[in-house]
């Protein structure tokens, strides 16, 4: 009961999805659309589980006064305040209430402030950290002392320095040409080899899942 029903469900729906690809029939398309809607809706219910876990872990930290518990207060406060602004707002009569989704999106001005002045700056700054990390990663590659890492580094350097003006026009020109060739030709070959491998790996894993051979996702490997 605990294991057979899920395996059966996986098999039935998995086989149906394979079948529907080959069958353009109205009925198979109709069921396909249902199933896609369903996955989407179930995902929304999972949100509750996620938020519950976040609250639970933070609360636990605060209650037991674990190291850095004060920051968990910040997380919980931010979560509740943002949720409050996220589900309340002004309605069309300018009255505050449990409603505010309109054509323009979420209209609560505080929600927008949180979005524009907390979410956006932190998000873009986190993203921009990549500039530093890619430099330190390049340095790490420099120190590598084996053939493979050297090959990686040399081709990275060729591509990185392709617009460098200090090599003089002639060298720069050829570097640019070689970089373009590297990005077009061997790149395509390697990507294709990887994609064929990935395709097979995915297909193999998916088939194992549908046939109930692979059950790792249910907690039984």
């Amino acid at each position, binding site marked *: 009961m605990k294991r057979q029903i899920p395996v059966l469900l996986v098999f039935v729906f998995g086989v149906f999805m394979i079948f529907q690809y080959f069958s353009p029939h109205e009925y198979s398309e109709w069921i396909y659309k249902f199933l896609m809607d369903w996955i989407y*809706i179930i995902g*929304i219910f999972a949100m509750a589980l996620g938020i519950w876990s976040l609250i639970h872990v933070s609360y636990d930290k605060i209650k037991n006064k674990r190291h850095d518990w004060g920051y968990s207060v910040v997380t919980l406060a931010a979560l509740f305040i943002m949720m409050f602004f996220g589900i309340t707002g002004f309605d069309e009569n300018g009255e505050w209430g449990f409603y505010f989704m309109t054509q323009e999106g979420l209209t609560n001005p505080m929600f927008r402030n949180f979005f524009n002045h907390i979410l956006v700056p932190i998000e*873009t700054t986190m993203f921009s950290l990549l500039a530093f990390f890619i430099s330190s990663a390049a340095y790490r590659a420099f120190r590598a002392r084996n053939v493979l890492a050297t090959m990686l580094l040399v081709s990275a350097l060729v591509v990185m320095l392709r617009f460098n003006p200090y090599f003089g026009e002639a060298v720069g020109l050829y570097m640019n040409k070689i970089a373009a060739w590297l990005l077009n030709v061997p790149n395509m070959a390697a990507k294709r080899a990887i994609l064929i491998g990935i395709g097979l790996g995915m297909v193999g894993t998916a088939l194992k899942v549908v046939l109930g051979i692979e059950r790792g996702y249910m907690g039984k490997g």
Partner: protein
Amino acid sequence: MKKTTLIIMAGVTVLFLLSWIIKALALEGMQEDYIKKAFLVTFSAFLTLSILSFLYRDNPFYKFAEHLFVGVSAAFWMSMGFWSTIVGNLIPRLSQNLSVFFKVHYIPGDFNFRFYIPVILGLLLLMRLSRNYGWISRWSLAFIVGTTAGLNFIRYLRSDFIKQISATFVPLLVDWQGTGHFFSNLDLSASGQLVMMLANWTIFLGVMSGIIYFFFSKEHTGMFGRASRFGIWVLMITFGASFGYTVMGRISLLVGRITFLFRDWLGFNI
């Protein structure tokens, strides 16, 4: 908390307040709500610097920004999901009364009952929180995993497998009509025949040896080993090229953030 930490925190707070006042004075007369606007810009700058401070090492400012970010983003995602999916798509099909309450248009339909099924599956998923009936949530998971495994099985078989194979059917020999610009000015991007053949051979050998590298059930020795070795070389050269290619893009992201700090916050005309 250490004394130095407290001093630094106090110093940063004072600097933040000062910056707020100066920004407010600068905006006065130019914008309405200048005190609030000055606060928001200063706060954004504070958060930006807090995150950047991580590059030096972990510190209370980064921890604050990180925890704030986690809380706000989780709530943001939850609110958006609630309004767009539950209120926007589900409620109009489930109940007229709820539709009225949320001020959305009720969509009547013969098959609306079908939307109760995912709701039930969703509720089953929530059974995870129960100690004794948590296993029921596997039914919903099984539904999702089964459906998408079947879908992905076909999708990858078609796009990553069959299409990639047929794309590798390239002409290795062409009716010879000269080398093109290859020798005269080493033009690799020219459409000369030598270059085209070189590219096609590289693609063919690269794909073949790449696939050989991914063979698991045969030892990589002898001829097979050499092919696999060549395969990993091609992979590494490619990874290097795409690494080098990404560097410039990443640096431009940083430029964007620095522009914010200097222009929007500090008011430099750059």
